[in-house]
């Protein structure tokens, strides 16, 4: 005879559900800490190096800009170069314009691992042997990757701003904070593509390859679209079109919110897909 859970039992289950989600998120964030340090320090040191190198070119900025004038205008636009004497523009063209291409791999790898990776490693049956709803596995990993990504952005921001303060480059904390925070939505959105693929295909390789292809594909569409009038109309299909240069212009919160909403929608879709399918080991 089937048992129907009463309201009291459902209330207890809801309370426990909050506990399991918190336990999953805190555990996953802790497990990702080593990756956060490696990614944060590597990218942060690169950014700090660029800040330090700015002091070397600062004095000859006029000559460099004259040299740049000799380059095709479209090419300079493609890489966001407008004034190399401006530290914000210099850092956008050398660091923050390119950083999503590397940093997106942190959430892509983390979220491809969440389902398909756990299936391939054979760890998912033991984990889901606990009273953990499938949607929480998806949501918990999304939240954990989001937190870890923010931590990486913070490390990069601190190393960038700290170096700027140390070598006396005119870069405010606000400008750096905008630049690193603006990395978050564009990187997490590719992570959620990986999460959806992980929920769909139960193959980690595919869950990495699809968002990686999209990452480079959309970057190329936007970059070439800046240089070529023929491809300019295609730029709005690329998420990089909405990325902008937050270090120079501040964060465009409409774009920030829209990309975040797409990431949330992809996560929701991943949860729905994963709820329906068999779990493979």
């Amino acid at each position: 005879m089937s048992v129907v859970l009463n309201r009291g039992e459902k209330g207890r289950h809801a309370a426990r559900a909050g506990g399991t989600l918190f336990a999953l998120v805190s555990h996953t964030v802790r497990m990702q800490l080593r990756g956060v340090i490696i990614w944060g320090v590597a990218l942060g040191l690169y950014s700090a190096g660029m800040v330090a190198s700015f002091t070397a070119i600062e004095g000859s900025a006029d000559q460099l800009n004259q040299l740049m004038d000799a380059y095709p205008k479209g090419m300079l636009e493609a890489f966001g170069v407008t004034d190399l004497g401006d530290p914000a523009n210099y850092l956008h063209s050398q660091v923050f314009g390119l950083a999503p291409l590397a940093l997106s791999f942190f959430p892509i790898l983390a979220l491809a691992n969440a389902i398909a990776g756990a299936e391939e490693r054979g760890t998912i049956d033991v984990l889901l042997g606990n009273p953990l709803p499938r949607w929480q596995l998806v949501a918990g990993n999304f939240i954990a990757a989001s937190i870890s990504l923010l931590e990486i952005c913070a490390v990069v921001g601190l190393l960038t701003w700290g170096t700027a303060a140390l070598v006396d480059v005119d870069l405010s904390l606000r400008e750096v904070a905008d630049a690193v925070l603006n990395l978050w939505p564009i990187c997490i959105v590719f992570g959620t593509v990986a999460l959806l693929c992980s929920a769909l295909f139960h193959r980690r390789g595919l869950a990495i390859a699809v968002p990686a292809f999209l990452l480079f594909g959309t970057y190329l569409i936007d970059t070439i679209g800046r240089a070529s009038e023929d491809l300019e109309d295609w730029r709005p299909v690329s998420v990089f079109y909405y990325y902008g240069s937050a270090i120079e212009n501040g964060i465009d919160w409409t774009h920030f919110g829209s990309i975040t909403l797409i990431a949330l929608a992809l996560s929701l879709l991943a949860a729905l897909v994963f709820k329906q399918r068999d779990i493979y080991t």
Partner: protein
Amino acid sequence: MSLAIETEKLTKAYGRKARGIEDVDLAVEEGEVFGFLGPNGAGKTTTVRTLLGFLRPTGGRGEVFGLDIRRDSVEIRARVGNLPGEFALEDKMTGEGLLEYFARLRGVKDLGYARELSERLGAELHRPMRRLSRGNKQKIGLVQAMFHRPPLLMLDEPTGGLDPLVQEEFLDIIEEVRAEGRTVFFSSHNLAEVERVCDRVGIIRGGRLAAVETTETLIDKSFRHVVLTFAEDVDPKPFADLSGVRNLEGGGKRISFTLDDGLDEMVKLAAGHRLVNMEYERPSLEEVFLTYYERENGEGR
């Protein structure tokens, strides 16, 4: 007595390539130790994973403690301690870390029983999983399945990789679990241990449940090994011609055979000679199990 597990025509089809389970009718009572037997690919793991909601059934229905396996999977898993047959544990974690994490997921505050189980099984809790042998990982797998004292334990090949002393300790724990009125559903290739602890066994072959009996009944209803020793030479042919006799060997004063049925005829035929000794032995569960599969292969041919 109420049922811990109940299935009715439970079916899981994987498509054309792989065989799943078909029309499995299973009733496991609360408080019993139920052995689920079958070779690799027979459907044991598919049955367990379908009951836990990891696989979506393609037909039939199933309940665990009256909870529907499709609708109430999370509630079911709250009442079940699961040891999967093929499993891995996160390489970076230690056993202690894993148990603390799972305790948080289950809302368990006290890890005293987990530590007691770890000590009894000799589980190494402070080394990362990647440095543990298969046996040590298996011990941690067992502890994580049992530490929260679930009313139902589902254990797939629980003693794989364990040394004999630890296997003995594990079987003692299973007997304690039964004494506490909790239910154990376990699959095993080690039929001696199944015979020792299981109240009933189910045999699955080709994705279908072939038999469910108490362990004693399964053996009692099965064949016997018979060895007859006579005072003088006898012709073995009349014994070989009996309908229930097979595998007849020997001749002269001593013959041995397997007797499926027809005990009365065999005894009357033997009584026609001067009988010195008669050995009449029950088979082991292992032999009974193998007979089921020999039959399947025979049918297959």
